[in-house]
């Protein structure tokens, strides 16, 4: 024991003069670090109530409680956090697909009542609601926002071919994409048919494809069509869409149905034959008619389906180009109808007399005739030769190429080398433009009144069209059409300016006066919408079931004002959208048995 060592401890007296570590009393409630994880905050308006936070919470600390009405894209539930469970791991924040949930940096909460440590962030007001510090999402997320890319034909060459543009997922890609699903089920609210989307995506993820198609067929007898061309409102509201790319619900459905060449062996229906002995006539072989026919037929009804065209499919046949929805896919779905025992009468247009006969010989009649009249552009010179309606153009084209119908001319409207202008911004306009391109048009221009982001067409369709070098002129209001001396057409248009309309509505295009632009082309295709055409019915029948514009009004069972006559599809819902037509059909599938007293 040396003296030095014995004295060493006294050396620490040097510390007596140093500043103490102690935090002064007034500063004792220190501000925490920027990232500190304190009490929850939530932007209740941005929250979609998907429940991912509740699912990830290993402590079962988060309940989803009813806070508002469920809407499309919002379940109306909001997370309630039980601080008798929370451990402030912030996994709920990192997994939040809408990015609304966060943790404030507030850390003190003392109370003598154990019941108070529970609240709905963002709804129950708390002092830390506006704290911008704390742990928030965005820097790094637990969920994968990036979609598995879909392989497609290259944009430069596909304009010359009728081959299907989208190639479809491989099994590995589909499972990878399906694994992104958070299974919140918000999509089912937005889907008009309320398909069992999370369930079938889960089945695809697990490789259980047979179960997947069965789940799909629960509410959709044309899944391959929907898998290829659906307007997919489900994807618009997908929880992933808030901060990233939605799950490719449509491509997954396509993948599942394409796995099977013949679905008749795979689909296992298990329904009571309630309709044995009852007869139902279906007018129109489009999506709504097919839905009614299929689901009633498997319930034992004797179903007669009347279709004016040589092929079933309705708008999905004549409206949708075959590079999106090829004929074999359509045939597959029609085979399902045949397998279910539906009697198909093609090339059988229904007129007033036949309609009355159907009413008298059948227990119920369903009208799913669709919108067969293309709207006029209402510009001067519209009736010049070379100006056609998109609906007529597409119908003729498809009849000529896919059927042996003799009612169409052999000569296409658009010939190789022509320059074509398409007026309109919907899916029909894009289809007409892309079909024109494939018919050999040298140049195709789409002319639309509003901005590109206002176009009702599917954004993927717009992108695809652009990749095929289709030019899109926006904010162009057609003024009149003139014929040039060399036999071409001059589409004269004025630029439009976007003016804010009433809140909630799209901005309105207003013509800038005094400016006239010329677009000289060989063909002009008008694609500005479709309307109903019920002239095949007697005027009395028209008056009973439809309003003066030809739109049919139905009750909650899908029945029109005429007893026993049901309707659905575009004629009823005005959306011109296949999945809504299917949803209408499903309503009638319930409505007819109920009306007949079979349930």
């Amino acid at each position, binding site marked *: *024991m040396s003296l030095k*060592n014995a004295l060493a401890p006294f050396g620490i007296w040097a510390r007596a003069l140093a500043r103490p570590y102690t935090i002064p009393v007034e500063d004792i409630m220190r501000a925490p670090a920027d990232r500190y994880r304190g009490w929850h905050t939530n932007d209740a308006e941005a929250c979609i109530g998907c429940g991912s936070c509740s699912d990830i919470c290993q402590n079962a600390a988060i309940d989803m409680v009813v806070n508002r009405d469920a809407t499309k894209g919002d379940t109306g539930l909001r997370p309630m956090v039980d601080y008798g469970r929370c451990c402030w791991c912030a996994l709920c924040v990192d997994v939040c697909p809408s990015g609304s949930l966060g943790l404030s940096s507030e850390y003190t909460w003392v109370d003598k009542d154990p019941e108070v440590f529970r609240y709905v962030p963002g709804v129950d007001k708390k002092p830390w609601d506006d704290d911008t510090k704390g742990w928030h999402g965005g820097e790094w997320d637990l969920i994968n926002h990036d979609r598995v890319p879909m392989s497609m034909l290259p944009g430069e060459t596909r304009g010359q071919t009728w081959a299907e543009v989208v190639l479809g997922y491989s099994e590995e890609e589909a499972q990878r994409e399906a694994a992104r699903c958070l299974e919140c089920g918000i999509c089912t609210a937005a889907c008009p048919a309320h398909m069992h989307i999370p369930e079938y995506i889960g089945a695809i993820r697990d490789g259980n494809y047979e179960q997947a198609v069965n789940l799909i067929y629960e509410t959709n007898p044309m899944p391959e069509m929907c898998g290829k061309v659906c307007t997919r409102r489900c994807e618009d509201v997908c929880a992933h869409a808030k901060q990233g790319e939605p799950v490719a619900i449509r491509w997954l459905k396509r993948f599942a149905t394409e796995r099977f060449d013949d679905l008749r062996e795979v689909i296992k229906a298990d329904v009571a034959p309630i309709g044995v002995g009852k007869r139902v006539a279906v007018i129109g072989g489009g999506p709504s008619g097919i839905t009614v026919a299929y689901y009633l037929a498997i319930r034992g009804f004797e179903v007669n389906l009347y279709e004016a065209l040589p092929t079933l499919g309705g708008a999905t046949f004549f409206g949708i180009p075959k590079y999106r929805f090829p004929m074999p896919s359509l045939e597959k779905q029609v085979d399902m109808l045949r397998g279910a025992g539906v009697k198909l009468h093609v090339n059988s247009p229904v007129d007033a007399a036949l309609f009355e006969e159907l009413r008298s010989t059948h227990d119920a009649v369903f009208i799913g005739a669709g919108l067969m009249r293309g709207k006029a552009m209402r510009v001067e010179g519209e009736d010049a030769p070379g100006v056609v309606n998109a609906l007529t153009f597409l119908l003729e084209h498809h009849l000529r190429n896919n059927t042996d119908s003799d009612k169409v001319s052999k000569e296409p409207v658009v010939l190789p080398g022509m320059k074509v202008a398409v007026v309109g911004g919907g899916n029909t306009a894009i289809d007409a433009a892309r079909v024109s391109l494939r018919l050999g048009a040298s140049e195709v221009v789409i002319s639309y009144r509003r901005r590109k982001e206002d176009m009702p067409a599917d954004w993927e369709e717009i992108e695809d069209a652009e990749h095929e070098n289709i030019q899109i002129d926006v904010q162009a209001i057609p003024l009149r059409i003139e014929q040039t001396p060399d036999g071409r057409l001059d589409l004269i248009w004025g630029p439009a300016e976007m003016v804010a309309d009433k809140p909630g509505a799209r901005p309105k295009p207003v013509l800038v006066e005094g400016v006239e632009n010329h677009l000289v082309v060989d063909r002009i295709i008008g694609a500005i919408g479709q309307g109903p055409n019920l002239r095949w019915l007697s005027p009395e029948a028209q008056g009973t079931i439809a309003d003066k514009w030809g739109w049919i009004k139905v009750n909650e069972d899908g029945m029109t004002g005429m007893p026993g006559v049901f309707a659905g599809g575009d004629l009823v819902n005005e959306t011109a959208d296949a999945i809504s037509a299917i949803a209408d059909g499903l309503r009638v599938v319930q409505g007819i048995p109920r009306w007949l007293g079979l349930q």
Partner: protein
Amino acid sequence: MTIENPHVEKETQLWVGPQHPGVTGNMAIQVWLTGDTIQRGITHVGYLHRGFEKLMERRKFIQSFPIVCRICVPEPDTNEYLLAASIEELGGITIPEKAVWLRTLVLEMSRLASLVQQIGGGAGATGLGAVPNWTYTLRDYILDSFEELTGGRVYHMYMVYGGVRRDLPVGFAERMEATLRKIEERLPYIDKVTFQSSVWRERTQGVGLTDPAWVKEMGISGPAIRAMGFARDVRRDFPYLAYPELDFSVITSTGGDIYARMEIRRHEVVESIKIIRQVLQKMPKDGPVAAPIPNVFTWRIPTGQTYVRAEASRGEMGYYTVTDGSDKVRRVHVRGASYVHGFAMAERMFEGLNIADLHPTLVSIPTCPPEMER
């Protein structure tokens, strides 16, 4: 110096803990004494038992991360790393370069915080109140850095499979450096009252001895084995993360007593500071902090089993993980560093120990009850 008392032949049974200021957490030592000499002792645990291994079997892989860090309170990050590394190995995920360095940083920071705390605990156990006063504060400065980096003070929940959850905040390196300097400044003062003080040396040298022969029998690790002259360190023997690229030495001593074990910690603090400086310097400046991870709700890992180890401040910590193709682990067995120290080794050390030396011995091994019983 033991007072020979001819009257004290009777054996006395004494419980030290669980409500005792001297034990290293909520545990109990049952000892049988003759006079003040311990004849034998048994470690009793279970007071902190929460059934982590059972709870993990009920939780999806990602959901296990917030709970594993609670297995060891002073040093939670080792648990997070080990679980992440096991799952990554079994699930086939490679983490990005930046995450490797950030993980190394966090692991070393938590080792440093724990070592600093143990020095204070060791000194406090021998009655030196000033040292824990200092070291708890120094540890607190490290916790401040943790809070800044990870958002949590004690439980960081910073690592998940795939990488880490956030990047370094701006200016972190400078503030960390300031903290490291504070620790370095204080070390000489700690030396003065402990390692240089002849009183403290008397108190700790030759006390709480371990026998090098035990090394062949038991899985002793950490300072306890290095104090017997074995340079065994998982960071060197089974390199993981960025440790192969770092320059550090494995400290050894030969006493095998309390003094030697505390001295090793004292030098490991310096090594740890050296490592943190290197990590902050060599860390890539940018790049992703985590690999893209599969859907946390539905990810399944094929059947497999593995054992992953890392060096905690108390010694080798290991996770034995079994997966069975489902979205949850089949079994996780946490091999806490002090499992061996607290039971088999401590019970041997108790024999012949003076009752007054029980607590300094326990602290110096050290034992950490939550990782012994989980």
